[in-house]
């Protein structure tokens, strides 16, 4: 209410300043590795440290000249886009189910829809590897897609569910009342309303898939995605390339996230269904 005025009696300037400094330190810790990776991706040194060497694009060139990296990037993009589409479709269905229906065993349904990301990736990776190789689906891009959809669908579900909860619960019923069938109401009311969240979920799940390396490492076999390639570099100590790839992936992911953010807050903020049909 009146933080500034109350400050004079119930707050202590020294404490406030110390806390602000602490916030800055916290963010410094979080962003130090991100910033360093960015800076050193343009640095010539083989073993990066300070003082900085001279500006150089050699690591980008090295990465760009590596056919395996290109292969990895193609795999990543293919996997990411496919995962995004499937996970968003599944997540939408689950979000709508939770929004609209009550049924016996719904708790179990929701648990299945939300728990996977909390299982450690090593365990999930191992389980996927063992299971998928048993049913002869391991060692290719398809196996990565299957595994990534499992952990991405919950994110899509959460994002779209949040949007649906902002919808007037009578909206759908009103559409029925005006003669729309369930399918028509879905197409003309629910989907347009949830559209920003659907695209948001699409981009977020793509970004999650782009960054996931552990499960992909277990199940991908020879069809390595880019993050798995990075894991390989990390083992092989041919390191500064990681910075170049990391910066590239960061820029890509952030573009997707910001796009999602714009969609979720920009048009999403309006509390009525978009009527672009």
């Amino acid at each position, binding site marked *: 209410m009146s933080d500034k005025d109350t400050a004079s009696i119930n707050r202590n300037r020294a404490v406030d300043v110390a806390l602000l400094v602490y916030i800055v330190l*916290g963010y410094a810790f979080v962003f*130090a590795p991100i910033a360093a990776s960015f800076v050193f991706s343009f640095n010539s040194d083989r073993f990066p440290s300070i003082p900085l060497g001279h500006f150089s694009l050699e690591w980008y060139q090295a990465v760009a000249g590596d056919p395996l990296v290109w292969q990895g990037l193609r795999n990543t993009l293919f996997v990411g886009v496919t995962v995004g589409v499937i996970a968003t479709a599944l997540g939408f269905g689950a979000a709508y189910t939770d929004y609209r229906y009550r049924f016996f065993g719904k708790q179990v349904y929701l648990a299945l*829809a939300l728990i996977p990301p909390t299982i450690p990736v090593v365990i999930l990776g191992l389980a996927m590897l*063992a299971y998928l190789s048993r049913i002869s689906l391991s060692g290719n891009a398809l196996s990565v897609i299957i595994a990534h959809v499992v952990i991405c669908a919950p994110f899509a579900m959460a994002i779209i569910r949040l949007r649906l909860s902002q919808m007037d619960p009578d909206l759908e*019923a009103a559409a029925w009342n005006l003669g729309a069938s369930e*399918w028509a109401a879905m197409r003309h009311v629910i989907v347009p309303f949830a559209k920003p969240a659907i695209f948001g979920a699409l981009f977020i799940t793509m970004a999650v898939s782009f960054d996931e390396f552990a499960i992909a490492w277990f199940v991908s076999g020879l069809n390595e995605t880019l993050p798995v390639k*990075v894991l390989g570099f990390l083992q092989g100590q041919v390191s500064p390339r990681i910075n170049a790839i990391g910066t590239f992936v960061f820029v890509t992911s952030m573009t997707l996230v910001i796009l999602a953010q714009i969609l979720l807050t920009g048009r999403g903020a309006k509390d009525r269904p978009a009527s672009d049909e």
Partner: protein
Amino acid sequence: MRRPLSLYGLTFSLPLLVWQVLFFVFPLVFLVALSFWTVKNFRMQPDFDGVNWATMYGRAVFWQAYGTTFALAAAASVLVSVLAFPCSYAISFKLSDTARSWAVFLMVIPFFTSYLVRVYSWQIFLSDAGIVNVMLGWVGLGPYTLLNTVGATMIGYLTLTFPLVVLLQLFSLVFIDRTLIEAAHNLRCGRLRTVFAVIIPSARVGLVIAALFAFILSFGDFVSPIYLGGGDPTTLSILITDTTKSGQQWPRAAVIALTMIGTLLAVAFAAVRFAYKGRTK
């Protein structure tokens, strides 16, 4: 809206259910079956034999790794909770609304940067001729061995968990009824004391859940212990990756994985019990 599931409804409900049963539940169930299989001449065969459990549980190295992993994850979750709390506290109570939403936005960014890249970046900071040692050298200290230590593993765990823990703590702190804090002050509770007597109890559920997530993430992470901790001491996750990727000892890896899941379930259950202790809502 209470309606029976129709074809229409099933079209939306079923796909996720089918997918998660096929590719989430089945793999985990298969993991259980796998742990009873046997390996003969480097080939796995379906079986129902407790030999893998007996072998793994009979090894000192397994229990050592278990103890190490548990201790490291517990230490990480306590450490990150303690370090994150002043930060989330300050963000929720000392920042303006605008500054707070920026703070939240910035804290989300790390989720979309590669954890691997950040871990590699810490190598740049911590190696013998790395940034930290160079800076220490300026003031006449060091060089110290920073990389390949337990401390470096901890930094990795913090990198992994700090943003999530701050966000989860923040989420429970911003919803605290401000009048409770006023009421505490009004009843002679000083600033610092209010933090412990009112704010922490009010946010307990969120704080415990945040610590739980930190534990789960650290417990399962294999990147930091290998690439920052140097693989020594061995953790369960390292044991799993080694056992899986070298040779056909998947059934034994399954034993480790199932032990981890059991542990995590127990910890999660205890944490949730503790979080809601004494609450009837």
